């Protein structure tokens, strides 16, 4: 059972409700989205593992069993080309769940014209194996967001 922690504090929403068709349709995998609280903050690692991809606006951690969890900070934020994002870790670092990965400010993303909603998605995983999906509730960073068994 993989425990996926919330990378940010905010309000959880169904991934199907976010304005990105690829995430909303679960093409990358199942998950939960979070409307983040405003203010400068650090987004943290949702699981323990290796930080195999680190972009300013998104990162991917793969655990020892090969499960990959993607955190995407805001929608279409690739177009911001890193502006307003600060890398707090390095690609290929071994990270613990809760470690700070990227510093950012959701209101800066919103001012740039993008939705700051964060997608937390398990790659290549059957949606039926996701349990305890907390949707429509307030969550703190590092709080359990959902569990997955795949």
């Amino acid at each position, binding site marked *: 059972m993989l425990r996926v922690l919330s990378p940010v504090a905010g309000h959880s929403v169904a991934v199907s409700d976010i304005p990105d068709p690829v995430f909303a349709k679960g*093409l990358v995998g199942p998950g939960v989205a979070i409307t983040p609280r405003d203010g400068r903050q650090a987004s943290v690692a949702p699981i323990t593992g290796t930080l195999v991809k680190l972009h300013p606006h998104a990162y991917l951690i793969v655990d020892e069993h090969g499960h990959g969890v993607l955190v995407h900070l805001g929608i279409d934020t*690739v177009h911001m080309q890193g502006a307003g994002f600060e890398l707090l870790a390095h690609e290929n670092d071994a990270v613990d769940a809760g470690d700070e990965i990227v510093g950012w400010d959701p209101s800066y993303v919103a001012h740039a014209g993008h939705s700051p909603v964060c997608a937390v998605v398990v790659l290549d995983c059957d949606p039926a194996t996701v349990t305890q999906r907390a949707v429509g509730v307030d969550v703190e960073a590092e709080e359990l967001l959902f569990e997955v068994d795949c």
Partner: protein
Amino acid sequence: MNQAEQIVAGLGGPTNIVEIEACITRLRTELADSSLIDERLLKDAGVHGVMRSGAVVQVVVGPEADTLASDIEDLL
């Protein structure tokens, strides 16, 4: 054909690809003519899904997107 070549073929060939960039799990492409997409070829190439909006087509490929995008750029 390797995966990059299959994806290029599925997107209508090298001359149809105006721009391609990777974003962690997906390829974002701008095509000259998005009606030339062959979804079956793309599925055969192992892509998870294809999302079109006008000339912009997103191909969901998984975490190898960065590597694939540079392999594809080498073919253009």
